[in-house]
């Protein structure tokens, strides 16, 4: 439906700046010492705020605030919302209780993953889907035959991730009473100003942590509330570089970084089924039909899955980002899509996509070829790699309820 002339006119000003500022931008900009920005889905987002390494330690030692407003958010509501989402996504939404969140993925008819994301069940028939890519046409076309409304609300809803051992202490101090009862993947509404903030015990770090969603006009007051409460608990604002380290340690994958989404890939062989990116555990073959079900089960039955996503531990300490994985040092077996030296695990870790049977039948004798640039000279090395389970780190504090007041 074409928007009205006046609405359109009012929106003309978007072109005044190519990169939008998030609702939290004034606060982050004031804190930014590095002035190190990148573009995240059209928004100006911090790559680092004061020191990317120290920011990482804020996640693992105190509390880190990360602005997730640019995440794409859809509100899905209506009598058929559950049934709709159950057909849309691979995981069983009937098992997602009100006030719960789950990580999920959705596929096209061919079983190729369109995206992964988190699904929040705000009420019996209201959900929020958060993801990296945009999917409105797919979501709307999926709604044919369902009594459901879909609203894109990325701009309207500001989001913050508060992650780290003292994050609970910060929220407690900020007066979010009852936050101690929130279990992992649970969400609840809390009073904030004249309205409410939705807080879920979720995150992208594998650590104790929360995500908070408020209407955009309440964003700054929420930030201030957390910031002042966090002063004694080491709260720091962080950028994506630090978060990325934490997420690799936690073994999480990122769309269009660790796998190509089906609507982005130009080459037919770049698309991936859930089983090819380590998401087989999400797929519920018993629940009613969902997009890609037939194709996924057929691929399983006919053993036509071509790839597998694995965690690697690589000897030495040089991150193997972008490295080619070899079998017996000579046959190409795959590609490393993310890698860091893990400060927490003290191991050289990586996420890699391998072409089966490497990673499935052939799991030994894997190597990665690393090119380390050392003072304008490449040092080329073959390092032994071992397939290890993800996450690479496991923290008890992540799941403890009530969480500890570190």
């Amino acid at each position, binding site marked *: 439906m074409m928007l009205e002339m006046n609405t359109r006119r009012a929106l003309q000003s978007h072109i005044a700046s190519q990169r939008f500022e998030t609702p939290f931008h004034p606060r982050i900009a004031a804190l930014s010492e590095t002035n190190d920005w990148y573009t995240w889905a059209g928004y100006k987002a911090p790559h680092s705020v004061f020191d990317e390494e120290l920011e990482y330690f804020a996640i693992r030692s105190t509390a880190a605030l990360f602005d997730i407003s640019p995440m794409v958010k859809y509100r899905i509501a209506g009598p058929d919302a559950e*049934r*709709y989402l*159950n*057909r*849309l996504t691979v995981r069983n939404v009937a098992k997602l209780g009100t006030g719960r969140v789950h990580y999920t993925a959705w596929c*096209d*008819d*061919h079983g190729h993953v369109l995206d992964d994301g988190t699904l929040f069940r705000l009420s019996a028939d209201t959900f929020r889907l958060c993801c990296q890519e945009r999917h409105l046409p*797919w979501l709307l*076309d*999926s709604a*044919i*035959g*369902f009594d459901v409304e879909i609203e894109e609300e990325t701009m309207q809803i500001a989001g913050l991730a508060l992650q780290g051992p003292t994050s609970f202490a910060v929220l407690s101090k900020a007066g979010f009473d009852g936050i101690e009862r929130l279990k992992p993947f649970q969400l609840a509404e809390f009073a904030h100003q004249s309205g409410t903030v939705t807080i879920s015990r979720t995150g992208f770090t594998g650590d104790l942590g929360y995500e908070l969603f408020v209407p955009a006009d309440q964003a700054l007051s929420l930030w201030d509330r957390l910031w002042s409460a966090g002063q004694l608990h080491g709260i720091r604002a962080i950028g994506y570089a630090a978060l990325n380290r934490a997420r690799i340690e936690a073994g999480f994958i990122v769309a269009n970084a660790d796998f190509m989404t089906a609507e982005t890939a130009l080459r037919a062989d770049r698309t991936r089924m859930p089983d090819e990116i380590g998401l087989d555990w999400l797929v519920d073959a018993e629940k*009613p*039909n969902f*997009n*890609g*079900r*037939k194709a996924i089960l057929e691929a399983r039955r006919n053993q036509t899955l071509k790839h597998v996503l694995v965690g690697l531990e690589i000897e030495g300490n040089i991150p193997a980002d972008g490295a080619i994985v070899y079998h017996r040092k000579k046959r190409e077996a795959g590609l490393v899509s993310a890698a860091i030296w893990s400060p927490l695990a003290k191991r050289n870790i990586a996420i890699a996509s391998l072409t089966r049977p490497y990673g499935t039948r052939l799991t030994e004798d894997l190597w990665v070829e690393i090119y380390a640039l050392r003072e304008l000279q490449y040092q080329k090395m073959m390092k032994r790699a071992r397939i290890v389970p993800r996450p690479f780190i496991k923290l008890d504090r992540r799941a403890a309820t009530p969480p500890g007041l570190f």
Partner: protein
Amino acid sequence: MTSSNLNRSNSGSFDAIVIGGGHNGLTAATLLAQNGRKVVVLEAADSVGGATRGYDIHPGYRSAGLAHIVNRLDPDVAKLLTLDVQTSPGALLPTVALSPDGKHAVLRGAYGETIDGINPDEAKAFAAMRKKLMFQAGILKRFLKRRPPEIGKIRLNDLGAFAGAGLSLITKGREEGRDFLRMLLMNVADVADEYLNDDRLKGLVAFDATLGIHLGPRSPTSLLGLYYRLTGEANDKPATQYVPQGGMGALAPAFEKAATAAGVTIRTGMSVARIIADRGTATGVILASGEQVTALIIVSAIHPQATFLKLCDSGELDTGFVRAVSNIRSKGNVAKLDLALDRPPTFTGVSPADHRGRLVIARSIAHVENAFNPAKYGEFSPDPVMEITLPSLAEPALAPFGGATLSALVEFAPYDLKSGWESGKPAFEKIIIDTLERYAPGLSSSIVASNLLTPLDMETQYNLPGGHWHHGELQADQLLVNRPVNASAGYTTPLAGLYLASAGSHPGGGISGLPGLLAARHILSGGRA
């Protein structure tokens, strides 16, 4: 028998349910039954026949349904069904290309084997064009009588068809092969312009190529419509047309009789409300009455969009598939005017015998093109083109003694009329009748009653989404592996146990019975044919 005891009386023991008792549904049902399957046909209307089902125009006057002539009834279908449809010997119908000056061109035999009323040069030119097109249509025909090949897994017998087509091209010489690939997707106007000079003939081929298709003669690919007509055959003779003994109204009973003879159970007045499916498998249907009928095989011989968007729970289908089905272009462009007349009309310059033929008003290519233009914008043609028959001449029972009926298929009448058909209908009807009056003076004064069916009316009356008699545009992008959509091109569907068998499937519409025949063959072969 009422619907409530349908299942019980048969202990739920049907092997196959056919949804829709049109000629394709009946063909599929008959073939399945002949091969030992227990089959029930569920027809929503009170009688079978689908688009060949007649209706009353006025007390004493009846229309024999949407189709005017038989020109592509597949001989295998006729044979398998031992269809009791016969043409009187030598009664192939002429086509009269009407001219406003009363000097018409009359095509006789198989698409103008001989033509009356044209000069010898033009006759030669037409013969050359006809020969070329008939040859090319013959190549295409190989692909119409078989399941469309599956890309990526071309089977041995597909290769056979390709090889056969290739061979017949090669034996004709390289030049014919090259010409075939050149012409295949051309527009009919350029081809006609290249060969012909006579506007009557050019107008006729332009009309025939675009009848029932949302294209003008200058639109690229419009030649396909003419090829499609030329691939038809009647009485083992390609590109011929006839009206069966007893009129078009004799068709539905013939199909019904064949089905019944094969042991098919036919249930009319039984509207299917839902196809039951769970996790990729269809297991039965729910009738409007609420009753369930189960079977391992469900054949939907109704429009693909009606099948998937109305009868299936979209949740049981994948989004991309639903999207593709929604994108099927299926908006009809043809209106049908039925007139009840108190005396047979006389078209000036048409011999009494030729009144039994197909009379076409399409003065020139430009006439057809200009008639098409408004349809692009949701308007009907102010100067329409049309095909006229006088059904009561073949089937006297359609009109009272001394009276007559006239039927005209009129282009272009868009389904989505911008101004709405409520006000559009009387205006369009007047235009058509005025046009007819010019060719058959006195006709208006003989009208007892009239009935104009717009595509919108066809949609409601015949459950044809968009009022499209081909169940989806018969255009290049909706043919073969993409008919009705790629994921459902070979009569199978994403739901195991659910098959398609309507004109919406390969090879398309017209009374051929081929979609029904090919679907049934595929089912019977266990997926191998």
